């Protein structure tokens, strides 16, 4: 991904001067120019860009083997004049000219190969092309198709689910919520809910907030204090609303203390230091570490364990899951966390969406299985399976 970004960045950059002045050329051996240049609108964009493609020079990687760059030139007419617009390295066969000023106007392109000694080849053939914006991103058909298919599953199962009792398998970490809050109450200790260092625009944080709603309802019923330090003030505001509502629903709006859901800091390790301090001083009986966590996961979980709390963790960050698994009593692994709100509410419509998610899983498993069989048959050179396999992989690789 980083490499891609850097590449994109590079494409926007053009050398600020032309490597053309060669004063002491003794013997000029010009490389062969690139051939078969074509220019066309860059697909799937907002316009303002023309893609130029060509066949590499005879002296690029073969022949004299002295080509190191291709310089791209653009003109308003077939005869020129042509202005320099950019450079790409040897071996490459395309260039996106993103500096096109007007869409739907024909521009003309030529290329020249260049050697280390800054000797340029003759110009290639002239190619013409226009830029235009598109109304649909054709590289994203696969996402649209699969997205609609999965969404249909959801719609179907939600419709089927209305008014029915649906099964959902046991998720130990969620069954333990009541036990954890209950034990905390018995010991006369508060409950600590830490939403991690995600923002409200992380889906995992929203999932954590739905869990918070259920936990708060329990603490309201048990009349136990709930403490929640926050990393993102927007999450804090949302959390205050949620907990207030939970307390109102439990019939104890007066027990809600807004000051216990507070902002700490927006610095990863500052937050970890602060939450550690709160754990050591408030000695909570139950700790919920739910949401987005990075390296601080183990710092929090180990400190939480040292104060003797029951800990229920959950995150979608796979790299942190091993640490939660080893340091916490219960851990919601990835998708279990997203299923939590449905699990805890037992609302048929919500459970229907879980069924939809399972149906999507069946589709993906089938794709992998079919792919594996095709791949094996293709690998053994049996029939057309190899090509079928390739097109399957390519379909998933687009966009």
């Amino acid at each position, binding site marked *: 991904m980083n490499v891609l970004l850097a590449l994109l960045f590079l494409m926007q950059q053009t050398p600020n001067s032309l490597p053309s002045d060669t004063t002491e050329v003794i013997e000029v051996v010009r490389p062969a120019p690139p051939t078969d240049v074509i220019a066309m609108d860059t697909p799937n964009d907002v316009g303002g860009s023309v893609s130029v493609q060509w066949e590499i020079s005879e002296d690029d990687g073969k022949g004299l083997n002295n080509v190191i760059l291709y310089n791209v030139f653009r003109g308003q007419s077939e005869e020129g004049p042509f202005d320099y617009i950019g450079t790409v390295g040897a071996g490459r066969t395309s260039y996106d000219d993103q500096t096109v000023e007007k869409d739907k106007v024909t521009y003309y392109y030529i290329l020249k190969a260049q050697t280390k000694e800054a000797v340029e080849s003759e110009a290639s053939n002239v190619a013409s092309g226009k830029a235009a914006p598109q109304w649909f991103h054709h590289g994203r058909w696969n996402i649209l198709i*699969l997205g609609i298919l999965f969404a249909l599953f959801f719609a179907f199962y939600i419709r089927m689910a209305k008014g029915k009792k649906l099964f959902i398998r046991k998720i130990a970490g969620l069954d333990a919520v009541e036990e954890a809050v209950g034990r905390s109450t018995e010991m006369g200790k508060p409950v600590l809910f830490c939403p991690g260092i995600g923002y409200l625009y992380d*889906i995992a944080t929203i999932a954590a907030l739905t869990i918070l709603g259920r936990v708060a309802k329990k603490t309201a019923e048990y009349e136990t204090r709930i403490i929640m330090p926050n990393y993102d003030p*927007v999450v804090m505001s949302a959390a205050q609303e949620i907990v207030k509502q939970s307390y109102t629903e439990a019939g104890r709006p007066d027990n809600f203390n807004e000051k216990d859901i507070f902002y700490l*800091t927006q610095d990863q390790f500052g937050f970890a230091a*602060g939450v550690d301090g709160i754990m050591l001083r408030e000695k909570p009986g139950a700790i919920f570490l739910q949401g987005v966590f990075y390296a601080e996961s183990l710092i929090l979980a180990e400190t939480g364990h040292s104060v003797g709390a029951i800990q229920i963790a959950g995150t979608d960050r796979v790299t942190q899951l091993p640490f939660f698994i080893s340091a916490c009593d219960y851990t919601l692994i990835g998708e279990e966390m997203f299923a939590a709100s449905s699990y805890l509410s037992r609302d048929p419509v919500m459970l229907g969406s879980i069924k939809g998610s399972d149906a999507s899983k069946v589709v993906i498993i089938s794709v992998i299985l079919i792919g594996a069989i095709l791949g*094996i048959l293709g690998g053994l050179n049996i029939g057309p399976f190899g090509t079928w396999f390739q097109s399957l992989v390519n379909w998933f690789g687009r966009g």
Partner: protein
Amino acid sequence: MKERKGLIIGSVILLIIFIGMLIKGEPSKSILVWIAALLTLFIYSFLYRDNIFYKFAEHLFVGVSVGYGISVYWQNAFIRKVFDPLFITKTYIVDGQFHLWPLLAIVIPTLMGLLMLSIFTKKQAWLIRIPIAFVVGMSAGISVPSTFQAYIFEHTKNTLYITLSISSFIMIVGVITTLVYFFFSKEHKGLLGKTANIGIWFIMIAFGASFGYTVMARISLLIGRMNFLLYDWLGVIK
């Protein structure tokens, strides 16, 4: 109680080592290094137990980081995205012509931001739901295509790079059984249960392996700090 005694002795030994090195070595003459070194020790003191030194360092850290964070945020959110385009660069005036949309693009979020402050009023506090609803809707909208792109397609495709080898076989079995473990709507019994069990084995092996793999990176961090304490601060090692 006995154990406690041992621990206290252990901690004292560590302290004596450090003090010994402080006398023997050539401590740094830079006040900044001294401050950084003391704060480092303050924070590590919490490994023994909560104490005034840790509390001091912790509150200092939170205070500094909030002050720093708000300064940076102030700049990124208010100055660059509201104040500058509204009053300095005036993005809504192009070639002397007034354009409504660029102005709205600054005013609407500012108004929504102001609604965050409705929490301070008693009656209109519900208005805070509007910016929250906006942010949540946005995250849901972004998440749908990007999860497909970054996770489903990417990982399905990479799983499908198949060769005729044991590794490929293990990879396919691992991905499928792990996915089966996340089946929620069927009870994990019979074949499904067995497959899901293999899935949880894979998950456990994976977690163990990445735990073991990470130890080195974490110890490296401590080596880095130790180097700072012994070399930059105490100067006991050359």
